[in-house]
């Protein structure tokens, strides 16, 4: 959902207010940095990617449609920056999957715990991304599918896979 503040700040920024750019940056830099940090090995790499994402975002601000939230748009830009490193990750990972093979487990809700967070970093980057966007950042499947440019059903499938993997890892670590 678009907040009034962001819309107003974007309008001001487009009118040439440098302070508005700064306020948008201050508002979203922490959450983006924390998110990107989960996929980068060094803080310097994280800072480079966050900086690049903000530059792209601000220089294309006039193209922002205001249909999604500014944060979703910003995260989308950051994700696409990361995808450029992973090259064909979508082709490799988001192939058509038979959802019947992945039935959700009744204990799924209990999976979101501090213990699981420790195991999240062991997931591959794609699963980790979908899981973090859904469970930590609070995006809906629809938003994630728009952000990653994949089908909503694929997003659900990847999340189910991530949860299954986490469940198996937990069973192994806590027999």
């Amino acid at each position, binding site marked *: 959902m678009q907040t009034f503040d962001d819309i107003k700040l974007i309008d001001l920024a487009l009118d040439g207010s440098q302070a508005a750019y700064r306020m948008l940056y201050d508002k979203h830099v922490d959450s983006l940095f924390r998110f990107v940090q989960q996929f980068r090995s060094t803080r310097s790499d994280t*800072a480079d990617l966050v900086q690049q994402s903000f530059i792209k975002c601000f220089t294309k601000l006039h193209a922002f449609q205001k249909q999604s939230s500014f944060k979703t748009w910003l995260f989308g830009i950051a994700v696409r920056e990361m995808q450029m490193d992973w090259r064909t990750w979508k082709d490799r990972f988001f192939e058509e999957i038979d959802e019947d093979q992945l039935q959700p487990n009744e204990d799924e809700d209990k999976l979101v715990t501090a213990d699981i967070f420790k195991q999240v970093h062991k997931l591959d980057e794609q699963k980790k991304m979908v899981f*973090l966007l859904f469970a930590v950042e609070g995006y809906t499947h629809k938003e994630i599918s728009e952000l990653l440019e994949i089908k909503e059903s694929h997003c659900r499938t990847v999340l189910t896979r991530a949860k299954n993997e986490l469940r198996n890892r937990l069973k192994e670590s806590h027999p």
Partner: protein
Amino acid sequence: MKPKFYTPNDSPSEMERESMWNQIELAVAEQKLHTLKPLHWRSFWFGCAASILILFSIIGLYAVTKTLFSESRPQAYILDSTYERAMNQLISVTPNLVKQAGEVERPILESKIKNIEDLDAMIDEIRNDMLLNGSSDIKRRQLKRLYAMKMDHVKELLLFDEVSM
């Protein structure tokens, strides 16, 4: 309470935050220098279409106005134009008459042509005055008389060789 996934260490330090901002600020400022206000293509094409429609409307309006005005021109103006056209056609043949004339007749013909030119100047003067200050009965009458005088001269010019023979 929802457990927190991120640790405080995951957030950027003040120094990292400022360092990133400095680069972003530079890039944004540079972009502002190199780009004008972005062109909104949809508005641009709507503007073009509107301009074309306005152009066609103006042409149509002009054509209609011209037709209406030409149909509603006063009788005096139509007569004036007719006199003018008829006499111009007659005068157009006078150079041939002068060429064909003998040594004796030529000065007489030239004097008549000079008279016609003087009358033309007076006609032009009255017509300009009518255009600038509007028409009146006196001006129309004067103009009609000048045309009549001019016609007399042209008639004399055309019949000159017959008279002299």
